[in-house]
């Protein structure tokens, strides 16, 4: 009879194959097309930037956790996801040291300070970006034309910048050499335009997003709500809805950043409101705000509401509305009279 070496566990004694690590790996894979395309567009500097942020993220998580004597956690790959995402939402010309600083801020301040994976109330990569934007506004709002190298190429305005400065879509189309507005849409969809490293090709970003949807890593509610409401409110505020979706980081944000587990609500209704709030804020900031693009802040603001949206839970099985004590109390009072 075997003694003392059998596993004594509480039920269940079986587990689904998904693990934290596999999930993060899936996100990394989903990001590869957009990453590859970004490197194709902006060349070696973009590659170096990606490597630098990923390395900085992983290193800072390792070192920080070692310093506070917490269990090592880089094995879950989430630091790589954060680092990669941060690189992808930065302008290709971001100086390496800035990007590294941003990655350290993301991981240390936005994630590890709050207890690490899953405990952070704000999206680390976006906090990193906001931190950089705030600290070095000039550098983080300098954009380059794609496919020309960025070492000595001329800076340019992104389509959103042009619109913010009052250009019409036809002007934008002319400026980016797309001919007519239809051509502009097509060009934006394919990704021949200036912007952050990873956001350019809506096509490739969507493929990554659909891959995650197909694997069940993300749920459809948030991306659909974000994209739908961005289009809706853009239209309501007098902007072109299709252009609004295709320009800037909306699609990227909707698939990869608004869906971040730790910072988005858990329940379906919560997710819907969260996504809708992001869409509304994107449209508002683009139309009225101080920035041409508002995805970062829209998501960060809604991150703050997640704890409240988490309270919008589905009715549990067999839910019975609690009896109102008032009803029983009222007759008693009357009787007392």
């Amino acid at each position, binding site marked *: 009879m075997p003694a*003392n*070496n*059998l*596993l*004594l*566990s*509480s*039920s269940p004694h079986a587990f689904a194959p998904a693990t934290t690590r596999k999930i993060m790996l899936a996100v990394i894979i989903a990001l590869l097309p957009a990453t590859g395309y970004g490197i194709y567009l902006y060349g070696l500097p973009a590659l170096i930037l990606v490597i630098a942020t990923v390395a900085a993220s992983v290193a800072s998580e390792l070192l920080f956790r070692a310093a506070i004597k917490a269990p090592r956690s880089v094995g879950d790959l989430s630091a790589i996801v954060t680092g990669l995402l941060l690189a992808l939402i930065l302008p290709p010309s971001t100086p390496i040291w800035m990007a590294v600083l941003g990655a350290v801020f993301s991981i240390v301040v936005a994630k590890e300070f709050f207890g690490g994976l899953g405990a952070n109330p704000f999206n680390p990569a976006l906090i990193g970006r906001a931190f950089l934007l705030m600290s070095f506004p000039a550098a983080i709002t300098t954009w380059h034309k794609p496919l020309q190298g960025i070492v000595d190429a001329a800076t340019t305005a992104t389509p959103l910048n042009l619109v913010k400065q009052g250009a019409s879509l036809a002007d934008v189309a002319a400026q980016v050499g797309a001919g007519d507005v239809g051509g502009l849409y097509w060009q934006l969809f394919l990704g021949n335009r200036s912007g952050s490293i990873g956001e350019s090709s809506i096509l490739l970003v969507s493929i990554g997003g659909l891959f995650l949807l197909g694997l069940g890593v993300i749920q459809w509610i948030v991306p659909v709500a974000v994209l739908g409401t961005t289009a809706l409110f853009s239209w309501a505020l007098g902007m072109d809805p299709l252009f609004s979706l295709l320009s800037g980081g909306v699609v990227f944000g909707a698939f990869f950043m608004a869906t971040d587990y730790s910072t988005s609500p858990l329940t379906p209704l919560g997710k819907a409101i969260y996504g809708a709030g992001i869409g509304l804020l994107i449209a508002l900031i683009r139309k009225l705000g101080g920035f041409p693009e508002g995805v970062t802040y829209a998501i960060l603001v809604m991150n703050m509401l997640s704890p409240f949206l988490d309270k919008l839970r589905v009715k549990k099985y067999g839910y019975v509305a609690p009896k109102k004590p008032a009803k029983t109390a009222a007759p008693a009072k009357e009787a007392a009279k």
Partner: protein
Amino acid sequence: MMTILITLGFSALLAFVLGALLGFFREKFKVERDPLVDAVRGALPGANCGGCGYPGCDGYAEAVAARRAGPNLCSAGGSKTAEAVAALVGVAANAEDLVSVLLCSGTKEKALDKGAYVGIPTCRGAKLSTGSTKACAWGCQGFGDCVAVCKFDALAMGDDGLPKVDYAKCTGCGMCAEECPQKLFAIVPKSRKGSVVLCSNRNVVKANVMKACKAGCIKCEACVKICPEACIAMVNGIPVTDYAKCTSCGKCVEKCPTKCYALLETDVMGKKKVAVNA
């Protein structure tokens, strides 16, 4: 000069009106309340900074008076205030000081594991899903649920897998006794002297105990037989000392083959055995 006169008139008037209004309202809307609240309130600085986590000094004073809060939460007042408040609410001296005694000696080495437990690291969780992680169904699970509930920092998990009571700090509040799913703590008067069996295994089959734990009581009844005062009796499978008779002669302790008999005053509460868990 004119300004100064105006100032004088204005300020005197304003202050008088305000003062009178305040006095008037205070009288008019007087609400009776616990004098202790007022006393505590008086001892607090009145900065109303909210640093204590209560809504202002009044809120905190009420909480202290109702024993819902400790006396040392006012950071603005510092240590002096804490002392004053503590003095005000000072609980009447206990009739008898109590302490907690762990009735198990099944350290990691001595008490055999039943299997390789995996699951949440709490004693209650382990007991619920395994009956007991130890081959002894009564033994300490060693996850320190008791340590976690102790409000006085009087319990610490020893390296040997058993919780250690710091008798300088233990107040005998009984939280550990209540929390322990194995019910391994006895709350006894601090002044109690005499022998005690540090084991709770009630399996009456000697072989079973021996298989499970090297420190357990094997029901040999050597203690019962040797006691010159005849103060030990087997109750429900475990020897029990009658403290009215026990003279702390230590014969039972000497005789116990597994050394699970001990003297409260020296072996348990004395400095000797309190392993300071550095």
